[in-house]
C-alpha cells in the first residue's frame, strides 16, 4: 500500500515540518505520494519533488485552497484516500485543523502527534503533557496520523520526481476566510531553529524582551516565550512554547525567567542542551536544565551578550 503525506506550508514557503514528516513516513515502509494544497504553489511542489523518498507529487492549486480551510482540504484528501493505507500530516496548526476531519469522514481514529514508529500499525506518542509515552496500535484499516516534527530529522535530497496536477476545486462553503495577521520576524522559525532563547514572566514586560535580541542575533536563535509571557501581552501568541503551544527540540534551549511548569516543559524538554537562568534556586526548570545559573536576569543577560 501507499502513504499520502500532506505538505505543510505557509504563505508560499514550504515548512521544514514537511521534510521531517516525510522522514517519518519513510519509516512506514510504503511508497510515498505528497499532496501540496493551496494557491500558486508550483514552486513548493518542485521543492517537495526533490525530498528523498517521495515517489510522486500531487498538486491541487486553486483559489478555494488559498487559505487551507479545513473543510475544503479534508474533502480533497477524502477524494484521494482510497489508494492509501496511511494518511500523514505534520502536527502543525494546519495539520491539527484538517486531519481529524479526514479521520472522521473516513470513520477511523486519528493517532495524534506520533514521536516514533514501531511498525506500520504501531506508534509512540506523548500523553499527559509528555509525562508518559503511550505505545498505540491502530486497529483501523486506514491510518490517519499526525507527526510531531521535532522528533524526526530533515530528509535528504533526491533527483526530482514527477509533479502532477489534480483538477479539484472543493468549496464546502460552511466557512470562509476573512483575514490573517502574520507575525513578521527576521529570525529563524521556532520549530526549525538550532538554538532557542525563551523569556517568561520574569522578563516583566515586552520591552525587556529586547534583552534577548542581541543574544539571539549572536547565536542565530529563535525567540520563544512561556504562556505567562504571552498572556501578559509581552509577545505574540505564536511564540508560546509548551504543551499547547509549539514543541521545540533545538540543540540549545535557554530559558530565562521561566519557572518550568509541566506545560512549559512539555514543549522543550527534548532539547539537546538546556540552560536555565532564574533567580529562584528552587525553580523546577533547574530539574531539567543541564546548566543552571541562579541570578537576576537583568544583570546577567547583558553579560551573556558580551561574552558570546
Amino acid at each position, binding site marked *: 500500500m501507499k502513504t499520502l503525506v500532506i505538505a505543510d506550508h*505557509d*504563505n508560499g514557503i514550504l515548512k521544514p515540518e514537511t521534510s521531517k514528516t516525510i522522514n517519518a513516513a519513510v519509516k512506514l515502509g510504503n511508497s510515498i505520494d505528497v499532496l501540496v494544497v493551496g494557491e500558486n504553489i508550483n514552486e513548493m511542489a518542485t521543492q517537495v519533488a526533490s525530498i528523498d523518498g517521495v515517489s510522486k507529487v500531487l498538486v491541487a492549486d486553486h483559489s478555494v485552497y488559498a487559505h487551507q480551510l*479545513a*473543510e475544503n482540504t479534508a474533502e480533497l484528501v477524502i477524494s484521494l484516500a482510497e489508494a492509501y493505507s496511511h494518511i500523514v500530516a505534520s502536527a*502543525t*496548526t494546519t495539520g*491539527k*485543523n484538517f486531519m481529524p476531519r479526514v479521520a*472522521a*469522514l473516513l*470513520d477511523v*481514529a*486519528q493517532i*495524534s502527534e506520533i514521536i516514533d514508529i514501531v511498525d506500520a500499525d504501531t506508534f509512540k506518542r*506523548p*500523553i*499527559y*503533557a509528555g*509525562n*508518559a*509515552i*503511550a*505505545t*498505540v*496500535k*491502530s*486497529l483501523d484499516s486506514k491510518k490517519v496520523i499526525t507527526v510531531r516534527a521535532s522528533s524526526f530529522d530533515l530528509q535528504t535530497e533526491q533527483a526530482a520526481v514527477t509533479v502532477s496536477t489534480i483538477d479539484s476545486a472543493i468549496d464546502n462553503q460552511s*466557512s*470562509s*476566510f*476573512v*483575514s*490573517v495577521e*502574520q*507575525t513578521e520576524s527576521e529570525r529563524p522559525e521556532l520549530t526549525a531553529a538550532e538554538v532557542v532563547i525563551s523569556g517568561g514572566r520574569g522578563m516583566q514586560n515586552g520591552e525587556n524582551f529586547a534583552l534577548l535580541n542581541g543574544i539571539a542575533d549572536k547565536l542565530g536563535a529563535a525567540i520563544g516565550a512561556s504562556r505567562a509571557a504571552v*498572556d501578559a501581552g509581552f509577545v505574540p*501568541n*505564536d511564540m508560546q512554547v509548551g*504543551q*499547547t503551544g*509549539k514543541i521545540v527540540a533545538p540543540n*540549545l534551549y535557554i530559558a530565562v525567567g521561566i519557572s518550568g511548569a*509541566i*506545560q512549559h516543559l512539555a514543549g522543550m*524538554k527534548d532539547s*539537546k*542542551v*538546556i540552560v536555565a537562568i532564574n533567580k529562584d*534556586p528552587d525553580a523546577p526548570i*533547574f530539574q*531539567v*536544565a543541564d*546548566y*543552571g*545559573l*541562579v541570578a537576576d536576569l537583568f544583570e*546577567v543577560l547583558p*553579560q*551573556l551578550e558580551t*561574552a558570546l
Partner: protein
Amino acid sequence: MKVLVPIKRVIDYNVKARVKSDNSDVDLTNVKMAMNPFCEIAIEEAIRLKEAGTATEVVAVTIGTKASQEQLRTALALGADKAIHIETDEKLESLHVAKLLAKIVEQELPELVILGKQSIDSDNNQTGQMLAALTNRGQGTFASKVDIENATVKVTREVDGGLQTVELKLPAIVTTDLRLNEPRYASLPNIMKAKRKPLEVIAADSLGVDLAPRTQLVSVSEPAKRSGGIIVDDVAQLVEKLKTEAKVI
C-alpha cells in the same frame, strides 16, 4: 441561540501524571481530577454569550463515568442551564466521543457547539474537528476570539504564524484556545443552586453508536529522564561549558 458545551473530566492540570509500574497505563488512583482547562474556557465563553443576550440556553454535556457528574455540576454552578451525562465506564476515543456528541447535536439542535481544543490527558486535539465533520458544519478551531453576527460566527484562530480569522455559517463548531477568556470561579450560592438544575443521564450504549475500540493501548512508559545538570557560578563559566563541554555554541 442554544449553545452546547462538551466538557471532560481529566487529571488536574497541576498534577504530574505517573506511569503504573506494570506499564499498562497512567495511574489515576487517588489523583485529583478536574474539568479540562480548555473546557472551562468553553463554558465561560458560552456563559458570556448568554450574559450578552446572544445565547438563550447553555447545555453542558459529558461522556464518562458516574464521577464526571461532578464536572457537570461545576458547569451548572458556573451558569449552564442544563446538563447531560452520557454514562459509560469504557475509555472512549475521540472518534467515539464525537459520534456520541453528534447524537446529542441531533437531539438538542444547538446553533453553536464550543469544545476545548485539546484534552490535557490524551492530548488528542481531535474531537471538535471530528464533530464538525460528522455534522457537516464549519469549524473555528483554536479560537482566541468569537463574534456572533446574525447568522454567522467570526472566529479568530491562533495559528503557527500568527492569527487567522474565519467566518462560519451557523450552526457551527468552535474549539477554544487559552486566550479566549479567563474563566470565573463558581460562587457558593451558585454551587448550591446548581444542585437543583436538571441533569439528564443517558447510557452511552443506548445511542446506537458503534463503540468498538479503534486503537489498542499496547503500553505506557516513562519518558526518557534527563540526567542531572549542574549549577554554574557565573556567565563566564556558562559560556565556557557551552563551548567546550556541551559544544553547542
